[in-house]
């Protein structure tokens, strides 16, 4: 009784298009029920009203954006010497190039379909057009940016492209063919080119340009060459890097993990280099240098022999015990210089602090040698690792202890956004190892370690950051032994690091606890020691599992650096809030509060938003949270 039989070639059944159209879309997305329809109307009214208000406010002639524009340098680096600005540009350039490299190597960006692009273009186009239409009278003051005609033209242009894309044949519209990074490049140059031609082609009617070149500084669209040229160079360099790296990547076989590791290490290393070397420009004194180099070299060479001896296969427990004693001695020597004097302090070639630091590092390396050294080539690599560490430490200490050539009024060579980044990057990188240690301590089976970690974490998290900063500025100075003085930046840095370590520790602990017992059992079955198991098996997995939480923590620290303005550091927020509105010469910005604050908000937003979006992508890519 088969009463139904479909056509035989089912695969070739012509696909039908779903019912669609604007009316249906509105019905489904804006007015699926009566309540929804009313809500839509209210929401649209609210949006339209606020949008109009925002445009009118932002472009009004009596805004004081000039306070922001004239103070760009102050906001970015405070009073970094004009003559040495090149150092800042080079730093920014390095960061951009490295980011471009990692993006290209990871094939981030990918491609999008014309359909999606068309949606984006339509949205931006409509926004631009609306801005143009709603521009308040008097906006001409802001020249090109305040020229409503240009906004309208730009909007119509994008709308046109967006609409044109919808006429592509269906399958081409849905195919992901357009490289995102290419789009970014086109957009960047498109905007610059558009503005350049626009300023030439449309001499603004009715706008009287001030004759005095000093006042022209305020003209927002005429960015000074001293800014425009470096940026052009940086963007070009980043693009070239991107293209070259993409090309290399497309030709390379394999997963490219080693190159990726190299780029990431470069990025990590670039921050200390930028802050300590490029921006600070230490003026190295040759007499000092000899001391440092001799100390460092002696340690590196003798230490290498000793580490090898400690890590030699079959070394036995006695050497380990010896290493433990050495570690304790080294620790006491470093933290309490008064108790254990350095034996070699008498020689004119010894630098005491470096000596103590290297001694402790050496002791730790010896202690861990049997665990990580292993035999043969592994041990050799370990010893090379020690030499490298010694060199890096020596170099860092040399750099840090020499005076900077960058002389600025006030006590620190950089301020503004520079400090904000310095604080957040350093606090994050330093608190990371500390946080991991604390997390391991809190989950460890050794009760005293667990108690200490728990006490630390809970104590630190118990009170707000601001109280710790106040402690840093009120109590820390009196507790330091005479002779050690910490600048405000250092104090803020230490306490931000200690603070964020406690929070990081809790995140990492979450990851550690999410790892099943099976892993540990498998590792033990392989005969790994507890320490080896933690370092090689548990920790990597735990960290991978908590990447989103860690990124969240990074964002939180970045936002939290703004608190240092309360204890009087000249960070980005401080300049936007309290410095600009104090200026009365050469321009009178007294009482200008809102514009710099909004600008600062926008800058913070751009960074945090970008990072959080990237972490979302990363999360998807890694499939974190999915099983």
């Amino acid at each position, binding site marked *: 009784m088969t009463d139904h039989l479909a056509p035989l070639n089912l695969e070739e059944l012509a696909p039908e298009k779903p019912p669609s159209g604007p009316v249906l879309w509105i019905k489904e997305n804006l007015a699926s029920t009566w309540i929804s329809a009313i809500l839509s109307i209210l*929401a649209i009214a609210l949006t339209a009203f606020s949008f109009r208000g925002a445009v009118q406010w932002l472009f009004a002639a009596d805004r004081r954006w000039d306070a922001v524009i004239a103070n760009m340098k102050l906001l970015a680096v405070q009073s970094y010497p004009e003559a040495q600005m090149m150092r800042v540009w080079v730093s920014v350039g390095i960061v951009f190039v490295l980011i471009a490299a990692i993006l290209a190597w990871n094939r981030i960006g990918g491609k999008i379909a014309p359909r999606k692009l068309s949606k984006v273009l339509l949205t931006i186009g409509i926004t631009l057009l609306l801005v143009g239409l709603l521009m308040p009278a008097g906006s001409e003051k802001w020249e090109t940016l305040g020229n409503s005609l240009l906004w309208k033209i730009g909007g119509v242009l994008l709308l046109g492209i967006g609409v044109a894309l919808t006429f592509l044949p269906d399958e081409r519209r849905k195919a992901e063919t357009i490289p995102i990074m290419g789009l970014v490049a086109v957009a960047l140059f498109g905007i610059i080119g558009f503005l350049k031609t626009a300023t030439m082609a449309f001499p603004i009617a009715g706008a009287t340009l001030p004759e005095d070149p000093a006042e022209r500084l305020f003209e927002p669209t005429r960015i000074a060459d001293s800014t425009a040229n470096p940026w052009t160079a940086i963007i070009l360099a980043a693009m070239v890097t991107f293209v070259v790296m993409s090309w290399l990547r497309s030709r390379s076989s394999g997963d490219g993990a080693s190159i990726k590791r190299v780029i990431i290490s470069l990025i990590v290393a670039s921050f200390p280099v930028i802050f300590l070397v490029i921006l600070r420009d230490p003026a190295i004194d040759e007499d000092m240098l000899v001391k440092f180099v001799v100390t460092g070299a002696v340690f590196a060479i003798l230490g290498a022999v000793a580490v090898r001896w400690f890590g030699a296969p079959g070394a036995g427990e006695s050497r380990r015990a010896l290493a433990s004693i050495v570690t304790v001695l080294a620790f006491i020597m470093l*933290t309490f210089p008064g108790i254990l004097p350095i034996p070699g302090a008498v020689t004119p070639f010894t630098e005491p602090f470096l000596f103590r630091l290297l001694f402790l590092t050496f002791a730790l390396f010896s202690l861990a040698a049997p665990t990580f050294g292993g035999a043969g080539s592994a041990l050799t690599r370990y010893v090379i690792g020690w030499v490298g560490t010694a060199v890096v430490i020596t170099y860092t200490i040399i750099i840090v202890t020499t005076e900077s050539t960058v002389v600025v009024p006030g006590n620190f060579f950089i301020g503004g956004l520079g400090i904000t980044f310095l604080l957040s990057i350093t606090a994050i990188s330093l608190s990371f190892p500390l946080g991991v240690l604390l997390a391991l301590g809190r989950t460890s089976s050794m009760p005293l370690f667990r108690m200490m970690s728990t006490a630390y974490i809970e104590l630190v998290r*118990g009170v707000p950051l601001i109280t710790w900063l106040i402690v840093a500025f009120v109590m820390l100075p009196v507790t330091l032994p005479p002779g050690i003085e910490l600048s405000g930046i250092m104090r803020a840095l230490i306490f931000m690091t200690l603070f964020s370590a406690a929070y990081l520790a809790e995140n990492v602990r979450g990851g550690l606890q999410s790892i099943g017992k099976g892993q540990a059992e498998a590792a033990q079955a392989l005969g790994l020691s507890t320490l080896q198991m933690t370092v090689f098996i548990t920790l990597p997995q735990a960290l991978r599992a908590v990447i989103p939480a860690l990124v969240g923590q990074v964002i939180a620290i970045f*936002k939290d650096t703004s608190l240092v303005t309360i204890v009087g550091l000249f960070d980005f927020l401080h300049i936007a809030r309290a410095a600009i509105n104090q200026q009365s010469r050469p321009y009178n910005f007294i009482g200008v509060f809102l514009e710099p604050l*909004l600008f600062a908000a926008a800058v*913070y937003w751009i960074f945090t938003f970008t990072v959080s979006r990237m972490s979302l992508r990363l999360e998807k890519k890694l499939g974190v949270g999915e099983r």
Partner: protein
Amino acid sequence: MLKWLAQVGVLALVLLFFRILGGEAAKNFARSDISFGFDWLGDPPGFSIREGIDLQPNSGIRALAVGGLNTLRVAFSGIIAATILGTIIGVARLSKNFIVNKLAGFYIETIRNVPLLLQMFFWQVLLMAQSSLTEGDVGSRIFSVSNKGVASIWVFPSTGFWPWFLIFLGGVYLSRKVARKRRTYQEDTGENGHPGLFGILTLLGIALVGWLVHPLLGFLSILWDGIGDLIGAIPAATVSLLIAGAAIVAAVVWIKRFLDSKRTPAGLGKLTDDDIFRMIFAGVSALFVVWIAFKVGGAVIAKPDGTDASVAAVLRDSFANIFYWFGDKFTGEAGSPLSVSKPAIELRGTGGFVQYADTGILATVPFFSVWIAVTLYTASFIAEIIRGGILAVAKGQTEASQALGLRRGQYLRLVILPQAFRIILPPLGNQYLNLAKNTSLGTAVAFGEIVAVGATLINQTGQSLPIVIVWMAFYLILSLSLSGVVNYYNRRMALVER
């Protein structure tokens, strides 16, 4: 063995580290003639606070109390507002309505990516830029915004509020009884018993009757005073004994319950050292309370008139005072228990100082900036938590409810929310805690909360360490009580699993 050596070694090093820092600090303080202690708690602080229950506190502890109350006030109102706003936005973020959904997303992404401190400054600047009050503004308003703050009409308790409130509480009890009766009726007969309607009507009726008859309760004043006298007459030593006894009993009961919970049919389960630590901790806390009950007094809260200032006595007296206070409120006077008060703008002094009068409710610029900033900021996080919680309830739950014919409101209430709440609660508690801690940024906009007051005290007295300890104690108690509430609900809602 080696493990223990390592642990003890590290602990010793840490202790040594702090010992050295402390020694150095002691030397420095000795040099500048400061010694740490808690004497400053009783000394006049020598500064005034711009808002709070007491603008000219006469002792350090009172100043800190004013600051602490300001923190609690802004934190509490912020928590309520942020919860409401966050829930609305979180639900909007789940809406199928395109625009509502996108607007909620826009809100979340804008607010949570800008530092809170900056937002606080923004609101402060915005309010300061409002027009100032002039003589032309004098008069009463419903709502008023100026560079002095935000003032609004408000309802305050007035004469006869407490007698009426007592009746009202009785009404709440009764109305719940009535509602339950109606529900049983409905369940038994299947007819709609309108339990909600009946309950509300009962409550309204009793509240209304109470409004008229509350003066009749005036006689209770004698009762309250009597109880106050009774409590006041207890000797301090007895109070100390009672407190100590209660602490010990509590600790013993807790330890017993704890051991019981570890007991398996096969006998006592294995105790980890965590468990042992916990029990030791409970015991030590009890001993600590005992010590406080008997020993602490005099020096800390010295009373000038020489009355007994031991903890026990102070506790007893404040307890008695509560009842005296109630006694004062039960006057038997007729009058409306609640009064609506409108903000008024008045001319103060001869110089023509235009200000808000003490009527209505006034959020000063610092208060308002802190409150609105922490509310909006926290709401953006709460919204994400709510959204996540609802999404985490499996989609199948909604489908199963729909397939059974439950309406949207019904399945949200009966199926989705009870499950989502469980997921939402712990992170929500965390956000509340963050909010409370974030109010400390108010110190940057001159809001007199506990950190700001403490920082001023440090400047005045140099007593940094004791004040840091006070801060820690304050936030510790705050977070313990919050997490206590959260844990309580969490345990009540735990799912039974196989």
